[in-house]
């Protein structure tokens, strides 16, 4: 986003200072002048012309929303248009693998294996970028959701995918919420999946519970997995963040970024508490 030089023309020094602070909080760091005049509040700015503080906030919010929408569009187009060349690379390295592994030499086999694995990872990342870009307020469909049922479905599916382990998942006191079923499902799948995936125990144990205060429900997903170091606790919700060596735990690194976007669209928050080696508790909040 470009940051124009802004002049605040205002008849009240304290108000003008206030507005300057708000602008600075929204990334207009430098280049803000205050000029005291007899006119009512006004900005000399190619983009903004604002009468008062509430309008300023509304316009800044609109600008931020537009920037997000543009980013979603860009992400969608970029990841969509990259699918075609990716399909070529992917098909031909797989064809090389199919026809020539074991027929050239040991080096060639290894090169081919790395190429095939690399392409698989790019594909997983692009697929998740597409998912991420399609999650937006316009496509949301809010209904009444029985989260007991939602979690039960997700758990049943999870148990099919992780047949190797004996998994124990318990759910307690889950409420009905108003939310987008598909999105909440996507987030719950991701959180439960992580709880089992980042877990070196032979029998992973996951406990799901819910607390409430006057505004929010707090869903807690507690596992006995590998845990997360304190210094990474915020980073894990960013794009393509993977804390682990990729061969140990596969994935695109987009899962928690997707969760964060979903929960924020529902006016909630998501965070993690953890002691490395002692499991993690992921909490997400949803207003009631």
């Amino acid at each position, binding site marked *: 986003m470009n940051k124009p030089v802004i002049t605040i023309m205002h008849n009240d020094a304290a108000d003008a200072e206030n507005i300057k602070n708000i602008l600075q909080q929204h990334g207009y760091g430098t280049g803000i002048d205050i000029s005291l005049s007899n006119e009512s509040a006004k900005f000399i700015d190619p983009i903004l012309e604002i009468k008062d503080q509430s309008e300023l906030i509304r316009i800044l919010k609109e600008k931020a929303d537009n920037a997000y929408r543009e980013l979603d569009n860009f992400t969608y187009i970029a990841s969509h248009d990259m699918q075609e060349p990716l*399909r070529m690379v992917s098909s031909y390295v797989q064809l090389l693998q199919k026809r020539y592994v074991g027929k050239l030499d040991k080096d060639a086999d290894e090169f081919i294996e790395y190429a095939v694995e690399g392409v698989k990872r790019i594909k997983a990342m692009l697929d998740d970028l597409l998912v991420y870009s399609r999650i937006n307020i316009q496509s949301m469909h809010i209904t009444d959701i029985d989260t007991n049922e939602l979690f039960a479905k997700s758990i049943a599916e999870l148990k099919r995918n992780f047949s190797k382990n004996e998994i124990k998942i318990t759910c307690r006191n889950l409420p009905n919420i108003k939310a987008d079923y598909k999105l909440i499902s996507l987030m719950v799948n991701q959180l439960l999946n992580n709880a089992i995936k980042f877990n070196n125990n032979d029998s992973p144990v996951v406990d799901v519970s819910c607390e409430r205060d006057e505004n929010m429900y707090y869903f807690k997903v507690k596992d006995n997995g590998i845990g997360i170091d304190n210094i990474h606790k915020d980073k894990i919700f960013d794009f393509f963040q993977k804390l682990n060596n990729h061969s140990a735990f596969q994935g695109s690194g987009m899962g928690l970024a997707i969760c964060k976007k979903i929960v924020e669209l529902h006016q909630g928050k998501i965070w993690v508490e953890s002691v490395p080696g002692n499991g993690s508790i992921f909490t997400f909040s949803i207003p009631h």
Partner: protein
Amino acid sequence: MAQILLIEDNPGDILLTIEAFKECTECHKIDSVEDGIEALKYLRKQGKYSNSPDPDIILLDLNLPKMDGREVLAVIKSDLNLKTIPVIILSTSRNSEDILTSYALKANCYITKPVELDNFIKIINSIDNFWLKTVKLPKTASKVPSNV
């Protein structure tokens, strides 16, 4: 052995389709043309295509230069001499509009190209099994009655 016409502009896709057919149990003869104009010349045996064979089936991509796949499909299906040849749409598009348009223009089936090679080979195999081994093709029947 069947005769196949592949209408596809991406050389990578042409070769991939040919390679995928090599994985089938029976060999087929595949000719390819890279745009819609060339395709119609081939089918009507015009110019350098005067000796081109009659294809048993046509594999058609939708996004082609010069004359795009939908137009080619419309022309083939309204040409008395060509409309009986089964046309299989082989496209990367999952767009429902593309699918509907194709069937409205009388495509014989619509297939979305998968990303994974193994899935693509499976699809080519099922084209071979169904269109070239199971169904009776019009080429083996007598001439189309002129009132159809």
